[in-house]
């Protein structure tokens, strides 16, 4: 890598936290301004006026984090449940097909010859599917962890 590219990379690394905090501050300033305007509106004591800004920051942080946590609490368990139901249905279905294929007398069916020629290893397919799901879930976990690390600790 050339020295210019290295310098640019160094500069980006230096500016990145500044960009993140300015974006965060811009977004958080919206609920904060609203809360600050309406908090202790009728009180004129100095202590309450001093507490207004930190409390507004705290409440806006709680609001933003609360929205994301609330949605995650609603979505993640339902999604996990649905995905596990789908996986168990598919793998159970493959098991049933394999059991049916080994036990049933296919000569009684129409297109029996064609059905005999159809050589699919259903159990191997099930194993492949389970392996694929395992890989997908570990990749998903890894990318989520790295995205959380790359972004910010909110």
């Amino acid at each position, binding site marked *: 890598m050339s020295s210019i590219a290295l310098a640019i990379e160094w500069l980006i690394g230096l500016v*990145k*936290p*500044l960009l*993140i*905090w*300015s974006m*965060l*501050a*811009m*977004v*958080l*300033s*919206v609920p*904060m*301004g609203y809360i600050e305007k309406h908090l202790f509106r009728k009180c004129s004591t100095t202590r309450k006026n001093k507490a207004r*800004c*930190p409390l507004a*920051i705290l409440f806006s942080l709680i609001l933003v984090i609360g*929205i*994301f946590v*609330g*949605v995650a609490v*609603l*979505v993640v368990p*339902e*999604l996990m449940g*649905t995905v596990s*139901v*789908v996986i168990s249905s598919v793998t159970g279905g493959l098991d049933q097909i394999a059991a049916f294929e080994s036990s049933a007398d296919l000569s009684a069916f129409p297109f029996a010859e064609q059905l005999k020629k159809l050589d699919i290893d259903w159990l191997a397919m099930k194993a492949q599917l389970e392996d694929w799901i395992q890989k997908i879930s570990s990749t998903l976990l890894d990318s989520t*962890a*790295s995205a959380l*690390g*790359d*972004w*910010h*600790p*909110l």
Partner: protein
Amino acid sequence: MASSLIDGVVAFVFCIYVLANKETLARQIGRLARAWLPKKFTDTTSHIFAVCSDVFRQFIVGQTTEAGILRTLCGIGMEILRIPYVPMVGALVGVTALIPYVGAFPASILGAFMVLTVNPFKALVFIIFLLVLQQVEGNLSYPKVAGAKINLPALWSERKTTLF
């Protein structure tokens, strides 16, 4: 990973400092600019920044209002059509509607998948319902709510939605 975490923590701490002292910081930057830069340039720049800040604030408020409207309409519609997963899909639609341009499409894909596992016909109904709702929201409600917030007539907001 560790450096990213440190970046994040530093950014978070700076963000809190900036928010806590935003008036003082703005005053100091203003004084610095007035001392070192030409008056006309300082006035123009501070006016541009003030307008940008106000428009951005109003845009966030408008987008949040719109997301709330979409989330409510989605919840009511799903209840009427007896589609399952109302709280989950409603919350997801509300949050993803905050993202400009992408809107509630990721939520509709995820919601359709969830409903599909319970009842495929209801999943089809859900997709049609959400497409209709998004068209209504994008062409009627959004230009009115968000356009009014940023002082843009509904007609131009609607054209912007259609063009981009």
